[in-house]
């Protein structure tokens, strides 16, 4: 495979992580358009840690995730009071707030004979941890997918545990969930915090493989991608999000590259079609059930 293909492997991995960050929050019935903002926080924080403080990528990535999760936790509280369209609007506003913060953020220091660090509207250049440490494109792709696999496995396990059922119960019917003893505040804020952490991880990796980030990377389009994957793939399990990230990034965006801007139209049309005709996504609980019966896989409650 050539570098271009390996680059695509990286992109699909990061977008899968991005989709999973929205997946956790969507499970509780909340549509967050703030994911791009959380990604931006993870990207800038991790980038500054490897470039300015010369940390290793792994602690920098985790710290970026934690920084994003703190902000997500803070966003989670006001989000409790609003739902539906109002929540979408409020989270868009938060995402833009974060983007504009980085647009105005300037903090550079001299390192040898060059000056490095985020430079407001000019962006944050030279995030060169990977090339400086001799990581090849394949190494980076492997790293992306190890992280993606850890997150996929964690969420898959969570889905089958009590925590997953609690998140789903809240997403299905908040009043009924409260009436079986679930504390809505704890669950919704926890979902936002987890979603923020995962988005921050995605941002940290994104910053390092592109080596150059700017505020415009973290716009509404990225936030739309984040929620599009779980909406297209369905919330029955994490594999739907993985499939949708692959489908959008590889089939719609790369394979059909010759179609140019028509692809953006297709992306929009795809989301509208799925939301209208398959409100629970391509892989809804019912479809997954049928698939399992068809493949002869055992029943959930035997787990």
């Amino acid at each position, binding site marked *: 495979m050539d570098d271009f293909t390996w680059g695509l492997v990286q992109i699909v991995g990061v977008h899968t992580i991005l989709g999973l960050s929205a997946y956790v929050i969507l499970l509780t019935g909340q549509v967050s358009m703030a994911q791009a903002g959380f990604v931006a926080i993870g990207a800038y924080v991790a980038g500054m840690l490897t470039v300015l403080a010369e940390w290793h990528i792994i602690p920098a990535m985790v710290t970026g995730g934690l920084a994003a999760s703190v902000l997500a936790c803070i966003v989670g509280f006001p989000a409790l009071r609003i739902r539906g369209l109002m929540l979408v609007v409020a989270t868009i506003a938060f995402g833009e707030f974060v983007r504009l913060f980085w647009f105005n953020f300037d903090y550079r220091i001299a390192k040898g004979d060059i000056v490095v660090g985020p430079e407001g509207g000019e962006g944050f250049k030279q995030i060169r941890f990977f090339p400086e440490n001799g990581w090849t494109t394949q190494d980076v792709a492997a790293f992306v997918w190890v992280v993606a696999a850890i997150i996929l496995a964690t969420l898959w396990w969570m889905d089958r545990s009590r925590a997953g059922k609690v998140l*789903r119960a809240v997403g299905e019917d908040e009043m*009924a969930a409260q*009436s079986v003893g679930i504390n809505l505040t704890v669950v919704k804020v926890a979902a936002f915090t987890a979603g923020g952490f995962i988005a921050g991880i995605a941002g940290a990796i994104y910053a390092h493989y592109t080596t150059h980030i700017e505020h415009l990377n973290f716009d509404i389009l990225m936030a739309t991608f984040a929620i599009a994957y779980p909406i297209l793939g369905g919330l029955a399990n994490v594999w739907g999000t993985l499939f949708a990230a692959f489908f959008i990034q590889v089939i719609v965006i790369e394979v059909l590259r010759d179609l140019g801007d028509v692809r953006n139209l297709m992306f929009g049309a795809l989301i509208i079609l799925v939301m209208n005709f398959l409100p629970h996504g391509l892989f809804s609980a019912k479809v997954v059930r049928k698939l399992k019966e068809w493949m002869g896989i055992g029943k959930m*409650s035997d787990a």
Partner: protein
Amino acid sequence: MLEVARLSKHFGGVRAVDELDFRVEAGEIFGLIGPNGSGKSTTVNMIAGIFAPTAGEIIFDGVDITEAPPHITLHAGIARTFQNIRLFNNMTVWENLWVAQNSAKQKRTGNPLARWMGGSRRAAAAVEEYLEFSNLAHKRDELAGNLAFGEQRRLEVARSLAAEPKFLLLDEPAAGMNLEEVKELDERLRVLRDRGVTILLVEHVMELVMEVTDRIAVLNFGRKIAEGTPSEVQKNQAVMDAYLGAGEGGSDA
């Protein structure tokens, strides 16, 4: 066990519940009846913590739960069902019971990680028991939304029981049931009472209310107009007037 004192709920100028007083003693089945719009469901929602009362207080087991939100009243020992069934439709029957069962255990399990991840064998065993009790064992892997109406009602009662409540609020559990199903429900309620669960039953189906309850309070326009044993209430002139006056409200009281 449950004491409601001067309880009121006003929605704008409408007095949905007005200065309501009643006491439910431990171990009884207490009926709450009245024509449509007389404030029964509002009362249930105030006790369960969905609505905050405008005035008055609710004391359960000596604890003031007037302002308590729903998950706190549940942990205090009050579980409920809804007038219009509210299940987790895209979850299986088993999952519906499991999530409720585990939530109920939260307060008692010491280890926070175990509490969050749950999944203990004891919890799973208890789910089996409620599946059997509500005659849904053969539907365990069915999505709740795919169940027949009567099965959904049974599942909702089972889900409220999974929380192991001391007190059960049932909001029209017999609505839409045929006579045979009502009889089954009657038997189940008696079994529950014998197990020590106190029940507040809001119901329009008089065959059930008059058969199964120990005492009844009758509401009309948010006020209590009568209280007593089923036979006393049936003879009460104010009750007959309320039902006849309300036209199509109740049926055969």
